[in-house]
């Protein structure tokens, strides 16, 4: 179950993922981790139908996603590549705490919302997001922002998060 990409993106499955990343990484599976979407059959169907047919989509809540990505009986086959998507850093941190190895996390898209501030272009955060990103760093994940392969990679490190909070 090589994890080819772990990505935070509040659009989940969309062009940057299907056209950008999947064309480059050629995953066998996309695991979309989100409790609300997993609980809604129609939303599950919408996301499952928006990928190239070769790729299998698994929409799961946190526990279900961790089971697919862990080492247990429900884990996806060892020789098949996986792209993991969460809508925010909180779900990604939860998966890390459930034992999913996440050496690198791509911060793809966190869009403008109430009370959020611009960390980078296409990455807007509130205090909770910053705390979760810090916790991911502390847990050993390297965080980078990159929209699609071949574009600029920006390191999200403690210094960048400190600078944002100092500017508050």
């Amino acid at each position, binding site marked *: 179950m090589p994890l080819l990409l772990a990505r935070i993106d*509040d*659009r*989940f*499955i*969309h*062009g940057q993922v299907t056209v950008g990343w999947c064309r480059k990484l050629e995953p066998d599976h996309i695991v979309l981790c989100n409790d609300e979407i997993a609980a809604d059959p129609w939303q599950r169907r919408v996301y499952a139908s*928006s990928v190239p047919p070769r790729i299998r989509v698994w929409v799961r809540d946190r526990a279900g996603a961790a089971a697919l990505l862990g080492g247990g009986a429900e884990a996806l086959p060892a020789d098949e590549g996986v792209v993991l998507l969460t809508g925010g850093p909180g779900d990604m941190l939860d998966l890390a705490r459930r034992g999913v190895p996440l050496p690198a996390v791509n911060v793809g898209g966190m*869009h*403008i919302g109430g009370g959020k501030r611009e960390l980078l272009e296409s990455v807007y955060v509130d205090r909770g997001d910053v705390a979760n990103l810090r916790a991911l760093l502390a847990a050993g994940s390297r965080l980078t922002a990159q929209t699609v392969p071949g574009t600029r990679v920006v390191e999200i490190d403690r210094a960048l998060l400190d600078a944002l909070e100092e500017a508050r």
Partner: protein
Amino acid sequence: MLCGLVVTHGGIGKELVRVVELVLGPVPGLAAMTNSGKSVQDLIDEIRAWTAANCGAPGDGLLLFIDDFGGSCANAAQIAAVGGAPARVLTGINLAMLLDFVTWRDTLGLDELPRRLVEKGRDAITALGPVQEG
């Protein structure tokens, strides 16, 4: 009335609606929305708010026009289409399709109109041959 909401990447939808209104004059119940800077949930909320404000009378219906299948616009539209006014989602919008929507929306219902629009939209996609002389 059947309302139309064009949901696209960037400014595509806004320009399509502007051009339709250049041709036909102001069109009530037709608007455009962009996904720029928005999460899927933002876009779902915005579509639902517009629909409630503009398409909430008994007998109203909604056509959601999307530029491309499989993106955040199409995903948001399909999710937002459930639970409000009766709605259909069409992808691959072009100018012919949108002009035909305005022309036929008072005549055809929510089930017949999408079929016609898909046909007209496809008809408008064509490779023009060399100009014949004489």
